[in-house]
């Protein structure tokens, strides 16, 4: 992480110098989110476009919110992973209302819900089991008789919705919901599995945690839009006012790009419309960067080399 931070600082310094003398203008800018598969995809797109279309491409780390602003302003051309339904608010604003951003047609299937370690899965198999205090007491780590469950990082959009689900299903009554950084929660999963402890927690796929550990996804009723009534998150009381008593809607993510590209660089828009990844590939990317700690650019070079014909196909009309 430190090295990555240094690279960012250096890049910023160089960018300032070049900006001052008016040199080095990349043809395209791809934003890279802070999760591993997003970084891998950003770099795969960079290498693929450079190789097949002969353009100079920069990858710049930034959050999704800033990426959307940049896509509208023209300072960013591509965002490699736009998660739905998580970023639906941004999609409504920038894609549907302003037309500034276009979502590529291909998408990767994703999933989010609750997972159990092997020890927990012996007792807790479904979301209904979470409502049974006799079952959830195995998740108790402090002796108060109530099990604990990680529901996400404090800043995530999904974390508030997990609070709504706990309230609506009712297990919020007999469990203590925990919010903390993902690294802490994932290390807790590692320690729980290493000592065969039961643990239940929010999880999402594709994610390398499924490569590291044998986890069980808790069963729950299929998503029913009629049973998801979420008040706008801008309302301070939105959690109290919301209700959700089924599984999350099937998630997916897509590449997003500046709508201006269609006219300015149609060959790039064509490339992005053809770029496709499977969920397994995204999990492998997450594992390669997140666990094996491969450098994103180096990983991307190898990936493009190994998938040469496929990437060349993305560039064809």
């Amino acid at each position, binding site marked *: 992480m430190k090295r990555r931070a240094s690279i960012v600082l250096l890049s910023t310094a160089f960018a300032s110098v070049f900006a001052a003398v008016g040199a080095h203008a990349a043809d395209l800018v791809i934003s890279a989110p802070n999760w591993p598969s997003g970084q891998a995809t950003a770099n795969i797109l960079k290498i693929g476009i450079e190789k097949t279309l002969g353009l100079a491409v920069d990858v710049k780390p930034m959050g999704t919110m800033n990426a959307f602003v940049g896509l509208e302003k023209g300072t960013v051309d591509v965002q490699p992973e736009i998660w739905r339904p998580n970023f639906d608010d941004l999609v409504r604003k920038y894609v549907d209302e302003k037309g500034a951003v276009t979502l590529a047609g291909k998408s990767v299937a994703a999933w989010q819900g609750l997972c159990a370690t092997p020890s927990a899965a012996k007792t807790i198999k479904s979301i209904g089991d979470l409502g049974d205090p006799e079952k959830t007491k195995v*998740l108790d*780590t402090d002796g*108060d008789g109530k099990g604990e469950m990680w529901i996400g990082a404090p800043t995530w959009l999904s974390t508030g919705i997990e609070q709504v689900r706990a309230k609506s299903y009712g297990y*919020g009554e007999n469990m203590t919901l*925990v919010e903390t950084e993902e*690294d802490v929660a994932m*290390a*807790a999963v590692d*320690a729980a599995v290493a000592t065969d402890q039961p643990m239940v927690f929010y999880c999402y796929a594709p994610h390398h945690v499924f490569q590291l550990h044998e986890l069980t996804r808790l069963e729950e009723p299929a998503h029913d839009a009629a049973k998801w009534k979420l008040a706008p998150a801008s309302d301070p009381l939105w959690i109290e006012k919301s209700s959700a008593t089924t599984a999350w809607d099937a998630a997916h993510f897509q590449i997003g790009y500046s709508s201006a590209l269609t006219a300015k660089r149609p060959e790039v828009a064509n490339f992005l419309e053809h770029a496709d990844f499977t969920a397994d590939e995204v999990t492998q990317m997450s594992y390669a960067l997140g666990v094996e700690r491969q450098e994103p650019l180096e990983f991307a070079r190898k990936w493009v080399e190994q998938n040469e014909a496929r990437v060349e196909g993305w560039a064809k009309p």
Partner: protein
Amino acid sequence: MSAVREKKRTSRLGRLGLLLAAAGIALGPLVALAQTQIYDAKTGKWVDYDKKKARQLYARNKQLPEAFQRQVVPFRTAEAPGTIIIDGNQHFLYLVQPGGKAIRYGIGVGREGFGWAGMVRVGRKAENPTWTPPPEMVARDPNAAKWAAGMPGGRPDNPLGPRAMYLFVGDSDTIYRIHGTIEPWTIGLDVSSGCIRLNNEDVIDLYDRVDVGAKVIVLMQGAALYKGV
């Protein structure tokens, strides 16, 4: 030091019991009991593992129960080698190693747990650290009051032992340290005043393996430490 808090930890006991049973010396999977127990191989009985018993067993065996001894264990994680993961609930500290392994050390933690969870880093390391008792200890304990200005390192009665690693958030020192102990039998118990204690051989071993800047993850320990909703 007060007695071990009597805290119901049945779920942990069950899990740790299985682990230790496999190791030959065990904490008991005793669902009805409210405190740590270990299996005494000489008498063939399960006994409470409180401070008194821990001291007796340590005097007899000259070592900790096997689970709390330093050992290499399988540990699959996305964290980089060199990262420290502290599981105060189970009294283990893991130092992540390459190849899906970790070195696991037994630890003693505070009477009320570690007090927080999150990510910090080793900001400073010290050999033979000076011990400065906290003001509340100075106020209640005449022995500590003698050392209000700091007890020099290297003394056999220095509670920090031979090494200390100071935990920082960014560039700020927290009040928390990983250090040694003059009461090695307390490893595996919740009896210190908040820091993480290893026996002295282990803290020297860890000190030599850990670099300043190492990432330290303190796991969630007990619901009171969480941001409950």
